[in-house]
């Protein structure tokens, strides 16, 4: 008999006033008791509506059925049939707009907490797994993956499972892409990312760090080295700025720089050599998940006041609802319907404030969201010593500029087939933010997986 409670089990979290001073994970995870109670809410629908909401097609009802049998390892195996990074997805997927959105229980009440169940199963496996997964038999073919973010790792995992010899090339010194430089420790512990990558290595995936493809080797040279297909998952790493006066003052960061200093370089640890500004009052400009992450990091670094300056209203905030709630609980102040016009500096070139205008919402624009327009005479100044620009990123042009015949959109995105990831170059596939522009981890994983299928087909056809 299913558990007919209308509410999902609440995720245990660190108290806001404690967690906003440390980098430990905010959500501490379900207990076994909670997991069993939550899994019992699943109605095991025959038509599995939840699965169609999952970009990688995890058999959700099947893994939840295994949980109901207390066969957690079986549940893990079910998930990994489709996903290479379960512990990551259980944490950072926007389930509310994917699998959980289609959950029948959500029609009247709250949907089953699929993501939280996935997280439990993956963590349980990672804690207890002693033996390495069996290495698939090598099929004699080689594939190269550029970028070790979610799309690249997924593509690598899928191909490795089919017996390909896969090498992942990463530009930074650590594999994981946005999972290690972007998403903070308190939302996605780096130990977990490391563990998922370790699992891929056990499947035979080789990871080569410090390799900036386009510089040290070109895509053409990868083919010369005997790789039969190449996947480009180089992400959308180039930060955008607003082009307002004062943006080059000291104390203005792109969210990328700020987050990289904090997450990848661990600037908050005393033993790290990487410096970061000890800001007292911080304005984060933007309303996406990245802006939320930056604001929460700033708070944890010891800032007294942290503002999120966003030009639209709460309803239009692109960040996940759960994250927005966490941000509010942690004492971060939303300055909604506010837009910066200038960053002010002191005589030493450091940020001393930010000038903003108030906005009101007009007619919907091309994105369907109501367009913000400036309220006349509403100018005001916020007293801050640090500004973090989190208004988006665009794809890195390094590979495009060094790969002849690789076609891109005007804004830099690589043109790739929506289903297969096939680019304008034979044997070259692409996916993730490098194709779509900044999106989510799971969409990138979906693209990586689809491309792996297409690469497999492409290579097998050539044989």
């Amino acid at each position: 008999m299913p558990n007919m409670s209308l509410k999902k089990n609440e995720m245990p979290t660190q108290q806001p006033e404690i967690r906003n001073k440390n980098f430990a994970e905010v959500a501490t995870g379900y207990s076994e008791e909670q997991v069993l109670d939550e899994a019992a809410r699943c109605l095991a629908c025959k038509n599995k509506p939840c699965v169609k909401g999952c970009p990688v097609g995890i058999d959700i009802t099947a893994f939840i059925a295994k949980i109901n049998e207390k066969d957690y390892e079986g549940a893990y195996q079910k998930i990994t049939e489709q996903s290479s990074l379960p512990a990551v997805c259980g944490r950072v997927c926007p389930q509310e707009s994917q699998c959980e959105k289609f959950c029948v229980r959500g029609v009247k009440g709250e949907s089953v907490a699929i993501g939280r169940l996935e997280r439990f199963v993956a963590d349980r496996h990672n804690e207890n797994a002693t033996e390495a997964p069996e290495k698939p038999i090598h099929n004699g073919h080689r594939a190269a993956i550029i970028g070790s973010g979610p799309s690249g790792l997924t593509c690598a995992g899928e191909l490795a499972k089919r017996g390909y010899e896969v090498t992942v090339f990463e530009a930074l010194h650590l594999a994981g892409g946005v999972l290690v430089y972007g998403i903070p420790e308190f939302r996605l512990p780096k130990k977990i990312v490391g563990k998922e990558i370790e699992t891929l290595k056990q499947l035979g995936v080789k990871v080569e760090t410090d390799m900036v493809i386009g510089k040290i080797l070109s895509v053409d040279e990868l083919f010369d080295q005997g790789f039969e297909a190449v996947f480009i998952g180089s992400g959308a790493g180039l930060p955008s700025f607003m082009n307002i006066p004062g943006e080059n003052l000291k104390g203005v960061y792109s969210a990328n720089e700020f987050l990289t200093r904090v997450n990848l370089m661990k600037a908050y640890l005393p033993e790290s050599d990487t410096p970061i500004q000890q800001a007292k009052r911080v304005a984060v400009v933007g309303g996406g998940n990245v802006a939320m992450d930056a604001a929460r990091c700033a708070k944890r670094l010891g800032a007294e006041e942290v503002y999120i300056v966003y030009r639209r209203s709460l309803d239009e905030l692109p960040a996940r609802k759960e994250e927005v709630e966490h941000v509010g609980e942690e004492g971060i102040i939303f300055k909604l319907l506010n837009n910066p016009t200038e960053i002010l500096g002191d005589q030493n070139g450091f940020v001393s404030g930010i000038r903003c205008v108030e906005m009101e919402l007009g007619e919907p624009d091309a994105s369907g969201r109501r367009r913000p327009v400036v309220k006349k005479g509403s100018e005001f100044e916020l007293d801050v010593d640090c500004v973090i620009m989190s208004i988006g990123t665009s794809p890195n042009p390094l590979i495009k500029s060094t790969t002849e015949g690789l076609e891109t959109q005007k804004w830099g995105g690589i043109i790739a087939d929506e289903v297969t990831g096939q680019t304008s170059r034979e044997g070259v596939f692409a996916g993730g933010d490098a194709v779509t522009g900044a999106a989510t981890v799971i969409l990138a994983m979906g693209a990586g997986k689809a491309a792996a299928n297409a690469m497999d087909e492409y290579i097998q056809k050539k044989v």
Partner: protein
Amino acid sequence: MFKIIKKEILNPTVTLMEIEAPLIAKKAEPGQFIILRTDVNGERIPLTIADFDREKGTVTIIYQIVGATTEKLNHLSVGESLLDFTGPLGTASHTENLKKVAVVGGGVGCAIAYPIAKKLYAQGSTVHSIVGFRSSELVILQNEFENVSDKYILMSDDGTAGEKGLVTDALKALLDAGEKYDEVIAIGPLVMMKFVCALTKEYGVKTVVSMNPIMIDGTGMCGGCRLSVGGETKFACVDGPDFDGHLVDFAEAMARSAMYKPQEREAHEKACNLFKEVK
């Protein structure tokens, strides 16, 4: 791992290292840079490539000890390895169609100026090298420069090496004597490049400078290395590091380069103390 093949103390604060990095050596061009890390807690720092040997598979770096990372680097010996060594990053210096060039180097900047002078000389361009140091014990790469220059002028602030004066004095004298250059390439401290550019602007000689701002990834991702060039924001790591010196906003670049000065000093002291304790 990237093994240290050779280590040579060039002057009390400047050291040369040859690093085993065959793939980078194969692609490196003058003007490009690498990013290195010495250890797991280490910072990523950019250093311009001072030389490379494609056959031997080595890349040469020359660094001045200024902070924790360079201090740590300097405590490594031949046979030991760097944890990370990434490159070649940035765009190569343009040397094509340059028939006569004045290469101006200041201090440790000479390490970057040298491979460019070498390339120009090898392609048959006339090279006038003007190099400046504070005093004689700081002079580096004298033989190397002399071997690739049609004219080599050594300047020092205190007159203990070459002529007393600034590189701008020597460059001005050459320009006044009627030397016509297709381009002046100036590499050194920001303040030196600023004054070289002020001078050459007056004389209408195109001037290229090599910028070395604070950066993390070196691939365009962090934007920390941004600078204003002709009123536009550029990323030194991907758009440069070479820029038209007459368009660079040096005041802004100087301010930005001082962003972490206090932290840098502190980290350096911490590193020094650590090494003292070890001894």
